[in-house]
């Protein structure tokens, strides 16, 4: 307020407008509390999580047909842009603002008001508040991005924009508050180090619901749909693995021993996930594939996400070995059987893998790794498994129900899908008026007629 007044005293109205949302140092902790090492680590961890969403765009983009690759990149890029702005205006404060009845965060930080150069008084008190905000913001971004894999190659872009804004505000922000913002699941004692429920179950289950509501792609029944560029998918997977170090080890919110252990188990879980998926398919149909290897690695990363701050190296290997074959069966058998068109397996990998990880945390968590946390079943505390189960159940139900309501709501106003002809032409040309590879594949050297 005082700033606001000052600026008006300065006779500048614009300043009033701007000033209104400028920091009120008053509200914040002491700057001297900042630890440069922790700050350096979380800033770079934030950059690492940021690059995961473009990584996801390549991971998904390589899997679709050439005529739809831009629509995938556009969806992921749009998520980054929209959620980045939503987060500083509203999302952060809904998730991490002062707890209101365990349900949602208060509006104290809307538009970054009261956010200065100092640490937050509540969270990550050794790093600037802004760094904590950005780190958490990148989680909100990628979570909304993950869903896109389920309804790829058929959703209208305009619908996608509305859906993303509603979903991140009504689904992600509350869930993040419940688990990390001092909400009721936190009070319940649910363990979710880096987002098994908040990130992977919420996006995976929402994806499944979206896939069911939108229905199958027309071409799906006519022909098999092959990835148009697997090297692109592998590149994306590599960026995901790379960024996941920031995702999990950054969730320690400091450059300490816990971060180091989270880093290690993240890597071994990814590795054993890749190994177990490839072994499963090798036994099943006789060929070890790179598509299987990267899928398994991502499954391993998903599964270890909630566990990464609580389990031992060996446990992480076991988690990876478990999740690979299960996700392989989910995408190669169950999906076929039930017939839903989860195009790029957002549910099959993130929904299933996140659930396995959340429950495995209830088995393998140990206070030896994290004295501030709890033991799991294998360390003599069966109750934790129950708590994990409850939090999984709540995440599934809430994400599923809300996604259903949001999409049904939108469908009252407009159809969710492009029409058959647009789908045949491809979303790149029909929705975005672009070609991914110009004419170049046609040997006419990327040229067209000027309009």
């Amino acid at each position: 307020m005082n700033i606001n007044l000052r600026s008006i005293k300065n006779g500048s109205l614009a300043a009033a407008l701007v000033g209104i949302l400028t920091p009120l140092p008053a509200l914040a902790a002491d700057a001297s509390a900042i630890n440069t090492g922790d700050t350096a680590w979380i800033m770079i961890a934030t950059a690492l999580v940021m690059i995961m969403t473009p990584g996801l765009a390549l991971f998904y983009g390589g899997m679709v047909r050439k005529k739809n690759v831009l629509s995938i990149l556009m969806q992921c890029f749009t998520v980054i842009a929209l959620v980045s702005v939503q987060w500083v205006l509203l999302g952060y404060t809904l998730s991490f603002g002062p707890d209101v009845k365990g349900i949602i965060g208060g509006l104290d930080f809307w538009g970054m008001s009261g956010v200065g150069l100092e640490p937050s008084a509540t969270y990550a008190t050794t790093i600037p508040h802004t760094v904590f905000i950005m780190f958490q913001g990148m989680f909100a971004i990628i979570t909304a991005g993950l869903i896109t894999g389920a309804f790829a190659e058929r959703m209208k872009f305009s619908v996608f924009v509305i859906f993303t804004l509603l979903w991140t505000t009504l689904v992600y922000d509350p869930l993040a508050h419940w688990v990390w913002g001092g909400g009721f699941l936190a009070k319940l004692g649910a363990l979710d180090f880096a987002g098994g429920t908040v990130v992977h179950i919420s996006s995976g289950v929402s994806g499944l619901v979206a896939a069911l509501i939108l229905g199958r792609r027309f071409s799906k029944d006519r022909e098999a749909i092959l990835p148009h560029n697997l090297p692109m998918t592998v590149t994306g997977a590599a960026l995901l693995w790379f960024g996941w170090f920031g995702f999990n080890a950054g969730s320690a919110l400091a450059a300490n021993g816990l971060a180091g252990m989270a880093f290690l188990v993240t890597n071994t879980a990814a590795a054993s996930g890749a190994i177990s998926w490839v072994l499963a398919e090798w036994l099943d149909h006789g060929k070890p594939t790179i598509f299987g290897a990267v899928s398994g690695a991502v499954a391993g990363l998903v599964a270890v996400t909630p566990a990464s701050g609580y389990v031992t190296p060996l446990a992480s290997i076991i988690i990876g070995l478990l999740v690979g074959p299960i996700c392989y069966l989910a995408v190669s058998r169950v999906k076929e059987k039930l017939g839903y068109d989860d195009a790029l397996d957002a549910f099959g990998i993130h929904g299933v893998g996140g659930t396995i990880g959340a429950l495995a945390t209830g088995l393998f968590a140990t206070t030896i790794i994290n004295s501030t946390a709890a033991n799991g079943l294998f360390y003599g505390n069966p109750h934790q498994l129950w708590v994990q189960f409850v939090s999984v159940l709540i995440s599934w139900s809430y994400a599923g129900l809300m996604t259903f309501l949001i999409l049904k709501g939108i469908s009252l106003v407009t159809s969710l899908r492009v029409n058959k002809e647009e789908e045949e032409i491809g979303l790149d040309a029909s929705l975005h008026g672009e070609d991914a590879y110009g004419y170049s594949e046609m040997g006419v050297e990327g040229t067209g007629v000027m309009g």
Partner: protein
Amino acid sequence: MKKIEAIIRPSNLETLKAALNALEVRGMTVYNVMGRGLQKDVKQFYRGQEISIDLFPKVKVEIICRDHWLDRIIDVILEECSSGQIGDGKIFVYPIEDIIRISTGERGDAAL
């Protein structure tokens, strides 16, 4: 013997292949082409610059067959690839003088 060239929509290739299979016509060569005809231009935009696209991706299916197969194959193509819309494509029929199977050196009908 005749050579049939069918220029079709890419999305019709798989169903056409299946239908020809049913007829036990397996031999075919497929080309990736761009076509222009009555189909009207579409607009694209790159950094605000408007581009008018008049060449559309098509698939050319080439089938060499004995004369008495000609009509049956044409009928199958019409069945599978015709939506009645402009842009469905064309079938061209050409004369052919000789065929040799490289693996065996057989000539004429025997080479098919």
